[in-house]
């Protein structure tokens, strides 16, 4: 039993993710190994499925991640990026994690520090970005952006479909349907997960989930949400699972749970919402500052989108994927926000706790 790291990219151990995935079950590794595939190239045009085969072959865990020197800086096109220019079958997705976790154990696939982008699907089918079955995946510190479907009005589009994944410290933005006519409400959803509190979306930032037909989209449908911000996604939190949801933020009135904040707008929160130059790090006076709940260290949830250890900062956690140590809350801005309808009690409490 060992941790075995293989490099993936031009001139590396494997030139493609697909070839590396085949190696997971071809006898290359020993039973009990923890196998890591590290990506080095600026982009990979691939779809992939991680099913039972690696675990039937005895592997303990499988991790796909960006090499530390090549990881993104929290903005698009800044590090390793996986795209897919091809097409997928009806009711399918380019990225599928569907090993049987009831047989082989939970959360044995990890995806870390990778940007997934530019999946622009034109066939007239139902399509998803990621399909995850049961407790198959922990996704950490990833960017997911510019996933779209131009399928006609009745076809569904989900960024994440099914399962009880753990999605943490990720940023998801500019995903939806581009077909402009007709439509059905809720045909576009960002998270469409199993109705279980074991589907966990923690410290994740979601911005701009759209349906060009102007029908209502949903940001979150089922799963447990803590410290998650969903902004400009129709009904941001349509339904959640369990009773522990808390410290969430939405641009509408739906953020669920204790200490959640509602009706906060993108220009107050993010550094940039400009298409092509998105930067969803939070900025000074963002309502997300110091407003999060300390989630501990399970599954390394304490590391933000940039790899910053929130606990190492000595301060309170921020909401969303970014922990901003240079951001400050100034009284002038705070007063202006108060006049826009913030809760006096909550905000004053946070001011007292901030690290001026």
């Amino acid at each position: 039993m060992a941790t075995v790291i293989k490099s993936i990219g031009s001139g590396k151990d494997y030139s493609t993710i697909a070839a590396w995935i085949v190696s997971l079950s071809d006898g290359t590794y020993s039973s009990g190994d923890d196998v890591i595939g590290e990506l080095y190239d600026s982009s990979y045009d691939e779809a992939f499925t991680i099913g039972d085969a690696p675990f039937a072959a005895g592997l303990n865990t499988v991790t796909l991640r960006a090499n530390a020197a090549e990881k993104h800086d929290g903005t698009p096109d800044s590090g390793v990026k996986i795209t897919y220019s091809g097409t997928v079958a009806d009711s399918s997705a380019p990225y599928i994690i569907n090993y049987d976790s009831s047989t082989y154990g939970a959360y044995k696939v990890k995806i870390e520090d990778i940007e997934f982008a530019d999946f622009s699907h034109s066939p007239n089918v139902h399509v998803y970005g990621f399909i995850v079955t049961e407790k198959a995946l922990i996704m950490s510190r990833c960017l997911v952006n510019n996933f779209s479907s131009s399928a006609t009005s009745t076809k569904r589009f989900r960024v994440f479909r099914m399962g009880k994944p753990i999605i943490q410290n990720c940023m998801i933005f500019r995903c939806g349907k581009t077909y402009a006519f007709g439509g059905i409400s809720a045909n576009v959803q960002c998270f469409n997960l199993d109705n279980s509190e074991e589907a966990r979306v923690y410290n994740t930032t979601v911005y701009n989930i759209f349906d060009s037909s102007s029908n209502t989209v949903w940001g979150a449908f089922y799963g447990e949400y803590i410290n998650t911000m969903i902004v400009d996604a129709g009904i941001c939190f349509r339904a959640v699972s369990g009773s522990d949801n808390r410290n969430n933020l939405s641009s509408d009135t739906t953020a669920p749970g204790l200490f959640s904040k509602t009706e906060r707008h993108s220009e107050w929160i993010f550094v940039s919402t400009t298409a092509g130059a998105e930067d969803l790090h939070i900025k000074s006076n963002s309502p997300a500052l110091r407003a999060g709940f300390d989630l501990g260290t399970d599954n390394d949830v304490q590391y933000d989108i940039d790899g910053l250890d929130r606990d190492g900062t000595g301060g309170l956690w921020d909401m969303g994927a970014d922990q901003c140590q240079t951001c400050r809350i100034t009284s002038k801005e705070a007063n202006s926000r108060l006049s826009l309808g913030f809760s006096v009690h909550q905000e004053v409490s946070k001011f007292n706790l901030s690290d001026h």
Partner: protein
Amino acid sequence: MELIVKIGNTDGDSNTYQDGDVVQTFSLNRILTANAENICNVNNFSINPVTGLRDNDSLLMKFLELRSVYKFERVNSNDVKKTNLVTGEETIVNKTPNEDGEQMDVYQFLSRRLKSHRHKIFGSSGNEIWYGKSRLDADLDSIWNAIETHTDNLKSENTSWNFSDIEMRMFLVLNCCSHISLDHDDHGHEHEEGHGESGSCIACTCDCSLGEVSQDIVDEKVESIYRDGDPIIDEATGIESDDNPVEKILVAKRKFLVPYWDYSSSLSLDIDRVRNLSKQVDGRKSPESRPYSEILTVDKITAGIVTL
């Protein structure tokens, strides 16, 4: 098109690649794009030690100009000019949301970018330039013209995928192309009868016009075979629609295989060597000798290997 083919494994498990399965395909456009990206990788370009930015007019800048949808130019402490390189439309973005709801704190945006040694910010302080959003229809000819102008790399020498030593051992690496019969016969049907050793479009002794295969064929060769299960009625969402997705049940990991064991003579393959996973085998042919994609690969459903 280049492709890698699974060697070994005949367990019949629908979840795994079987002997001869097409694992991955590579269109010429994908190959040229990947090779261009490697040449234009940001790690290959230096940062100006005085400004901390990247100099204008480098190959990296030209590559990004050709590969991106948007160009951003900082015009003062608050404002950024955003140009759509496809339409030429210009807008100004700053801290106040514009009519599209776009806003940017350019100081904070650039401050974080410039912390990375891999940043792609050009120009001079106060007049920074950068690019955003990849073009899905980037003009590869223009990109390679820029590369050939700035470097010794030639497009004609970058038309092959850079497979690793491990891949050359664990997979069979092949290439193929389209064959268009010059005598206008029903070309594909004609040669299916002689599929394998006797197929002249495998050995490429035919009198055909050879060309790149279409993207549809490149995509088709890596399709899986599914059987439709039950419709997924998403009752919890309350969505009422007659057009429901259906459960997909995997029947075979790949629809197409290459029966390479039949091609020892026509493709000059030493099958024992191919199956020896300690030996590297590169089965790629020169452009004039590439086999016909539709003869090289076999549709498992059509061939009766898989029944739905």
